[in-house]
């Protein structure tokens, strides 16, 4: 068998393998949320006054908001006063060199397969690692700086490039956007920042690895990526968390800005702890991701492989403002055991001749519930806009569910919108065919599922496609008896 298939086989017999806890001394703020906590976070991060004001505006707006209920997921009420909003490894939070990273944290990331020592990194990926609330190391920073590329933690960006941050922060996802994004705007702790200057093609994949470690902690990271005119960047995001019986909240915000002729490719492999087989524990993942294709011919591609979390609520979208701009969304979402996912995209066509493509693959197994929710909005001025959507669902077993909610809003008669949808069950005859050729049932399922997801996997950078395939097989483990 190929190494990929063999790894799948090995992994298929394992439980969630990222479920360990690292013992590091953490500096936390008291449990609960109030204006004091917001000020404390801002103070700890030595933020400028304008940012504190922004946070406070968000906090006050949030107080008047109610949690959304339209999504097709069920979960116990979240007690927002029972969450710790800031937790940072105690050792020096801002680091100049990788040698200063706490050895325990370094060991954690190594366990996760993210070696922070630059020499060990496979060439071509620069990594920013976020542990609980704080970014602990960014590799290749100097090399990138020579090209004018800024890639650092969000906190460092606030200190070192405040003008850029101030110019773009909240321009794609305003602080008042929605309940979870607004909460994030008030209490976000860290995240990644990237700026690719005019005409520069980023020579390596930029990558952030998020890890929730501390108990009762929410993770609220914020990422901002700006591709200036003619710039190109490919960005990857990975996430894991320890196994815990209680649910943990993750409410992140990602904003992308692509100026004229710029391209941003944003790929996510989301593998937060999904909870156990009985549905106990797991991450509540409420995330707002949006890109603004602001310039002419700009392009934003979201690719996501969502295998983890007890609850996934995210709709990475594109605002297609520039004429001829392009938005793409490729998604694989799996729900096994008691996982629930309500995910999809929003494509908002404003400019002329804008184009969007949506390919969504939902896989449900066990008691998993998988909902695709997508919106395509074509504005009055969006002459010649085009959208193609394809939503396929695959069911494994008969206790799970797949749901599709496509919303269309078309205000320009020259627009062309196509939607295709399918729901299928994993075919016993396909499994038998594979077994007759010598493959185990497990391998057969993995093969069929990865075939089902192929159009999405091929959008991922090579090494991540392999990783994604492995995760998929792990998350579907035990789904076929």
């Amino acid at each position, binding site marked *: *068998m*190929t190494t990929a*298939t063999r790894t799948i086989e090995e992994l298929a017999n394992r439980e969630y393998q990222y479920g360990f806890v690292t013992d590091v001394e953490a500096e936390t703020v008291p449990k609960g949320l109030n204006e004091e906590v917001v000020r404390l976070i801002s103070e700890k991060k030595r933020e400028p006054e304008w940012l504190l004001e922004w946070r406070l505006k968000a906090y006050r707006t949030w107080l008047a908001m109610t949690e959304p209920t339209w999504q097709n997921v069920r979960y116990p009420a979240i007690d927002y006063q029972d969450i710790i909003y800031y937790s940072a490894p105690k050792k020096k939070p801002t680091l100049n060199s990788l040698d200063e990273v706490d050895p325990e944290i370094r060991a954690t990331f190594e366990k996760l397969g993210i070696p922070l020592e630059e020499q060990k990194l496979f060439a071509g990926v620069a990594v920013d690692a976020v542990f609980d609330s704080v970014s602990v190391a960014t590799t290749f920073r100097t090399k990138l700086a020579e090209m004018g590329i800024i890639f650092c933690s969000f906190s460092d960006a606030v200190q070192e490039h405040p003008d850029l941050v101030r110019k773009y922060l909240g321009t794609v996802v305003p602080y008042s956007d929605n309940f979870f994004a607004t909460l994030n705007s008030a209490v976000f702790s860290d995240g990644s920042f990237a700026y690719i200057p005019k005409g520069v093609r980023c020579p390596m994949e930029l990558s952030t690895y998020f890890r929730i470690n501390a108990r009762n902690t929410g993770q609220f990271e914020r990422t901002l990526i700006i591709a200036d005119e003619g710039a190109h960047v490919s960005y990857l995001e990975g996430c894991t968390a320890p196994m815990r019986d209680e649910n943990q909240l993750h409410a992140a915000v990602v904003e992308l800005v692509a100026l004229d002729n710029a391209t941003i490719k944003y790929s996510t492999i989301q593998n937060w702890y999904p909870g156990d087989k009985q549905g106990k524990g797991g991450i509540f993942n409420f995330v707002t991701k949006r890109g603004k294709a602001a310039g002419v011919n700009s392009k934003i591609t979201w690719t996501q492989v969502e295998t983890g979390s007890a609850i996934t609520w995210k709709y990475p979208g594109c605002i297609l403002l520039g004429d001829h701009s392009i938005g793409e969304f490729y998604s694989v979402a799996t729900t096994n055991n008691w996982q629930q996912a309500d995910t999809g995209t929003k494509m908002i066509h404003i400019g002329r001749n804008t184009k969007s493509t949506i390919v969504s693959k939902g896989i449900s197994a066990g008691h998993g519930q998988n909902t695709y929710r997508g919106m395509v909005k074509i504005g009055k001025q969006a002459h010649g806009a085009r959208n193609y959507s394809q939503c396929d669902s695959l069911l494994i077993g008969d206790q799970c569910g797949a749901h599709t909610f496509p919303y269309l809003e078309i205000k320009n008669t020259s627009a062309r919108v196509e939607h295709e949808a399918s729901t299928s069950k994993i*075919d*016993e*005859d*396909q499994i*038998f*065919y*594979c*077994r*007759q*050729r*010598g*493959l*185990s*049932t497990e*391998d057969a399922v993995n*093969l*069929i599922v*990865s*075939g*089902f*997801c*192929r*159009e999405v996997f091929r959008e991922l950078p090579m090494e991540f496609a392999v990783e994604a395939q492995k995760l998929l097989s792990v998350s579907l483990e035990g789904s076929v008896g």
Partner: protein
Amino acid sequence: MTMLEIHNLHVRVGGKPILQGIDLCVNAGEVHAIMGPNGSGKSTLARALSGHPDYQVTEGEVSYEGRDLLAMDPEERARDGVFMAFQYPVEIPGVNNAYFLKAALNAIRTHRGQEELDAIEFMALMREKSTLLEIDPSMLTRSVNEGFSGGEKKRNEIFQMAVLEPKLAILDETDSGLDIDALKLVANGVNAMRSPERAIIVVTHYQRLLDYIVPDVVHVLSGGRIVKSGDRALALELEDKGYGWLEPEAAAAAPAAKA
């Protein structure tokens, strides 16, 4: 040496009894042809031998190389050398044909204690076997059977057999839907596999195939039983007379048949 010995095999599908006492003995090195009217149970026999979970054995024994075949999972049977060319090969969208075959071959090799083939060795093997069957290389990079014509699917089955080199091959109507040239190619492919260590069972409706793949024994399956066995001449006789004349014999072979 006896490779496959079927004794009094009864099989039910969807609650319905289909095979009603099959006895068949196939030795290594032999080619057996199974003929018989539509719905007589030929594919049922092939599927039961390869372990399809919907085919429930209610009575009888099957030994394969001295082992209890019925106790083995389908993949174990495959890894131990049982291959079935499907009457209706299944499509697996998005899964590359070559990748699929490599996974299968390496599963079998691992089981045999052989080293897995790497990409280069595998490609060389593919080239060799695809030349034999005149398989268009583009078929290897397409998804398994997806969008293949009926004839291409059948050729792909034989191609897989050539790569996997089974000990016992069961070909279920591989000749149906093939044009004359493809039929000869497939027959050549099968003949190239004939060896003293290998047994082949061909299910067919057409005696023409048996001009190319000359069988040692011909059986007629009717009403879930083997009602007549003979040499090649039997196939010619069948072509001439059809199956009707065998019916009294079928009835005689099944005195206890209940309506």
